[in-house]
């Protein structure tokens, strides 16, 4: 038997394919994960927990839902869509302060804990009844600066200052620079003024705030509209002005997607190396090469060849 008989020409192509597949598979097995620069996000999300956030001008599943509940639900849904490696932290705003609750942590590994934490952010945490949003936003920016990791801020509020601001509002704290932190100011609430439910410290409802129980805006002339600080709607012009001042973007929370689209905005993405396994590429190539041996056996391919 000659050597030529034992290794006839027909063997060449098939064995070559099998050999290549074998090498590709070995590559897939030993291949270490590579670091790939991927878009991730890093946000400190601050919820306004003052009483006007209890106004129920949203709906979840056909039932009325308060601004805070809806904002939380929107953020919960957005969390699912953030790429792994993104970091999220929580803060709450009341009185004139933003208090950090949780420093930003990785989303995928701590998903359940993040949600459990989010569920507990509500009006019962409130440490004061005032609502000085400008200052609260500045404190949120300080928090983002001091907490490390340079998160962007997402500040969810209806924009109702209590007591109301007269004139220009509070100047930004001197240690902050407009545009240095960046983030979103999210306007929460409908456009129609609604009465504000009143709750006690434990969150039990106590009717509504009346017009003589809150500080009203000074109305200089009879021409300007009467002040209605006991009613609440999203104060968009004020929030837009505030956002411009601190170098934030403004968006109105219309539906769940508003916040998701805002948070996934590429402008706010950071790039961080993420170990990524590419073994599948080599294995898929092996599969392709191996199959090229057998393609011709498919009935329709066979007919085409002959």
């Amino acid at each position: 038997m000659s050597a030529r008989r034992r290794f006839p020409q027909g063997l060449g192509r098939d064995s070559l394919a099998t050999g290549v597949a074998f090498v590709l598979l070995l590559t897939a097995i030993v291949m270490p994960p590579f670091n790939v620069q991927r878009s991730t996000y890093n946000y400190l999300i601050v919820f306004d927990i003052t009483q006007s956030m209890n106004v129920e001008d949203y709906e979840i599943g056909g039932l009325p839902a308060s601004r805070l509940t809806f904002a939380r639900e929107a953020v919960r849904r957005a969390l699912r869509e953030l790429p792994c490696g993104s970091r999220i932290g929580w803060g709450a705003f009341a009185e004139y302060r933003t208090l950090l609750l949780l420093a930003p942590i990785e989303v995928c590994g701590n998903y359940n804990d993040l949600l459990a934490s989010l569920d507990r952010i509500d009006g019962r945490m409130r440490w004061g009844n005032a609502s000085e949003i400008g200052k609260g936003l500045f404190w949120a920016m300080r928090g983002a600066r001091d907490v490390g990791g340079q998160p962007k801020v997402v500040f969810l509020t209806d924009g109702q200052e209590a007591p109301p601001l007269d004139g220009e509002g509070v100047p930004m704290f001197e240690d902050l620079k407009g545009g240095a932190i960046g983030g979103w100011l999210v306007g929460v609430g409908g456009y129609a003024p609604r009465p504000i439910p009143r709750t006690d410290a434990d969150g039990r409802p106590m009717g509504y705030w009346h017009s003589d129980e809150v500080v009203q805006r000074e109305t200089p002339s009879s021409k300007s509209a009467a002040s209605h600080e006991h009613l609440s709607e999203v104060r968009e012009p004020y929030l837009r002005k505030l956002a411009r001042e601190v170098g934030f973007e403004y968006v109105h929370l219309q539906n769940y997607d508003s916040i998701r689209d805002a948070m996934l905005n590429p402008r706010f993405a950071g790039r961080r190396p993420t170990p990524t396994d590419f073994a599948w590429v080599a294995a898929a190539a092996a599969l392709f090469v191996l199959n090229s041996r057998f393609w011709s056996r498919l009935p329709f391919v066979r007919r085409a060849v002959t």
Partner: protein
Amino acid sequence: MSINLDFSHPWALLLLPLAALPLLWARSDTLLFSYLPWLPADPAGRIVGWLRSAFAVLAIASIVAGLAGPGRPQTQVARTGRGAEIVVLIDRSRSMDERMLPSNWRTIDPIVRTQQAWNRGPQKSKTARDLLSKFVAQRADDRFALMFFSAGPLPVVNFTQHDDVVLAGITAGGTGPGLSSTDVGRALIAAIAEFDLREYSGSRIVLLVSDGGAQLDPPTRKRIAAGLARNRIALYWLYLRSINSPSLDSQDPQSDAVAEIAMHHFFQSLSTPYHAYQAAEPKDLAQAVADVGRQQNLPLDYLERIPRRDYDRLCFGLGAFSCVMLLSFGAVQLRGWS
């Protein structure tokens, strides 16, 4: 433990029909022969041919299976270890921003010392943050929950074994100045309530980290005492003393006028375990944290998480082995008559 398997990219299994390709009749493998019955019986050849198809199927199927990302999902196994369930209750009031005594405080003139309360020595909140972080990191078997308090309780982290979350909470607690009001009573009641509806699975602690006390009214005292007894909780008070604040172990009968001492006496009167750690210097606080660690090491049932194990490399290995077998069978196949 049952073997359960899942796929991280199950859609890749749609490629599985490809594995049937090698079973189809292949014209290229056939040889012309005039009369089949003249061929000698070739049982070995039949077996080899059969095995060859089998390995080809196996090679393709295992690569497809590997691409689908098979693995044993993350599971939890109940174990009994030593540790505790700890609610860390951190004071977020303004006074926590004050400084602790510098380590050489005994040598400093008392008047100067008072002036230095705001600018010398480490901030109490920062010291507490550093030490608590170490404490959490050291005690891997414990389950922690985290709650801040000011006018009311601010629950931050539910009971978890994920240290990262607890540490992130502690970090947040040390960022930015504190709030103006403090209500220890409400906070304690809320911390005790964290254990309501939880199965009793080991020692339970409320670790109060605060620099001040409050005069608790009788109803509050009653609720705290009843709650601690009902949920079988030990109370530990990490009392961060600063300049000018009273020592807890004063024997003076008048001392109950001081809120801290009154609260300390009330805690001592409890039927449940209580221990106070006074920390005036960072080093005392370290001692106190270590002490808590030593004291509470009773058996605790906990769930150990076993991370996901991927089997894709195993599948690719099987595919590679099949390729080797295919190569060796290919070498003995008769391809032509000449």
